[in-house]
């Protein structure tokens, strides 16, 4: 690897200073599972690498009453520090019990060694359209907490954080501090599935996350897809169709309509034709999996 200097700041102030040094290319590193291969391949040529894992709060995973930006009541939010490892999320009993779709999405990423290093913050900051945490974070209505060099903390809905392929909403030297995930009401159902060339250890061809919130006389739905366009997407039309009913015909219609939100490309992992077909198949499979847990319409 080309030489660079490594720093491990202990405060955000120190980190901002390092990340905004004039005439130096600085890169933040968390798990390094994207940064290290990119640097080795010469895609990145950093002068300094700033390890942000040790910053305050970055490794916290806990319930919080920091509710303002996630819209839930006090104590109903999960705070996930940006440097929490993917495997810590996959194995957390709080996450498995209350946000199983996030645990499933985390468990689908890479392999054991990668999940022990990779972080949730790194996964969204890389902003790959195929980031496997994304569809789950989209249906969970997660918010991203961002800290900036001039103390201008801000909070963005996850869908505004992804701005294009490998592009995110961060401004120069900003750092993602963590994610806020609203609690789901009792009875919420969800399903996550990822299709890749191999059963495991590969990036997604298509991934899908579905949530349903049953109540006395109606069920609200959320559906998101990954690897099907420049950013992950929600499929509002499919959600609206399912809200009116979820018999077999409605499920087919919803799955077909999900395709309307996508603008897939063909790439090394899949031809365009195959990916188009798989969007509909995977959406249908995921919706059916949730319907199977619901009282019949």
């Amino acid at each position, binding site marked *: 690897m080309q030489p660079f*200097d490594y720093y491990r700041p202990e405060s955000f102030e120190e980190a901002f200073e390092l990340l905004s040094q004039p005439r130096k290319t600085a890169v933040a590193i968390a798990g390094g599972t994207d940064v290290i*291969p990119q640097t080795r391949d010469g895609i990145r040529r950093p002068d300094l690498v700033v390890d942000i894992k040790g910053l305050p709060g970055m490794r916290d995973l806990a319930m919080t009453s920091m509710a303002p930006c996630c819209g839930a009541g006090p104590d109903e939010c999960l705070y996930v520090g940006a440097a929490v490892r993917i495997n810590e999320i996959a194995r957390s009993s709080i996450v498995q019990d209350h946000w199983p779709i996030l645990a499933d999405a985390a468990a689908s990423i890479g392999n*054991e*060694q990668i999940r*022990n290093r990779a972080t949730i913050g790194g996964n969204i900051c890389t902003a790959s359209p195929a980031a496997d945490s994304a569809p789950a974070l989209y249906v969970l209505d997660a918010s991203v907490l961002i800290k900036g060099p001039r103390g201008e903390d801000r909070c963005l809905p996850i869908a505004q954080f992804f701005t294009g392929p490998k592009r995110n909403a961060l401004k120069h030297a900003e750092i993602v501090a963590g994610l806020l995930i609203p609690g789901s009401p009792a009875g919420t159902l969800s399903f996550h599935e990822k299709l890749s060339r191999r059963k*495991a250890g590969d990036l997604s061809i298509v991934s899908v996350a579905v949530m349903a919130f049953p109540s006395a006389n109606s069920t609200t739905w959320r559906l998101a897809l990954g690897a099907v366009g420049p950013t992950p997407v929600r499929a509002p039309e499919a959600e609206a169709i399912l809200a009116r009913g979820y018999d077999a015909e409605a499920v087919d219609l919803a799955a077909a309509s999900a395709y309307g939100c996508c603008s897939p490309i063909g790439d090394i992992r899949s031809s365009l034709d195959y990916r188009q077909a798989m969007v509909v198949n995977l959406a249908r499979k995921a919706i059916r999996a949730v319907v199977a847990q619901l009282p019949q319409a």
Partner: protein
Amino acid sequence: MLHDITFTVNGDRYVVAVRSHHTLLQVLREDLGITSPKRGCENGECGACTVLMDGLPVNSCMVLAPEADGAVIETAEGLSKDGILHPLQQAFIDHNAVQCGFCTPGMLMSSKALLDRTPHPSEDEIRYALVGNLCRCTGYVRIVEAVMDVAERE
């Protein structure tokens, strides 16, 4: 840039000066002469460089050397005790789970981490734990059998 790091490898404490852009794999192999972790893809795909870092399997080619400061590292060199092989090592021999041996240290470390966490895993759990360890020789069946053998013991 140089960093003085202190860490433990297989129970021995080391203080070494490492470069910012070197990896834990380089430090183990080139500075300490601990060569069971292999350099395969250097890209996080093959797992030949797998070591345990604070008890968890990681690709040592994906850890920057200064990040290892304070860590407890385990490699295949540390598995046998007083000349007696670790049960996993013996099972790999008994089941002919080794051909060229390039993947073996990584396979052993991933398997050890699994058994430390889940002493009696199912076959599916074993396969899931070994997704990040590629073997180009054995076809995996014998490797999984070797781990199953140890997993089924009391």
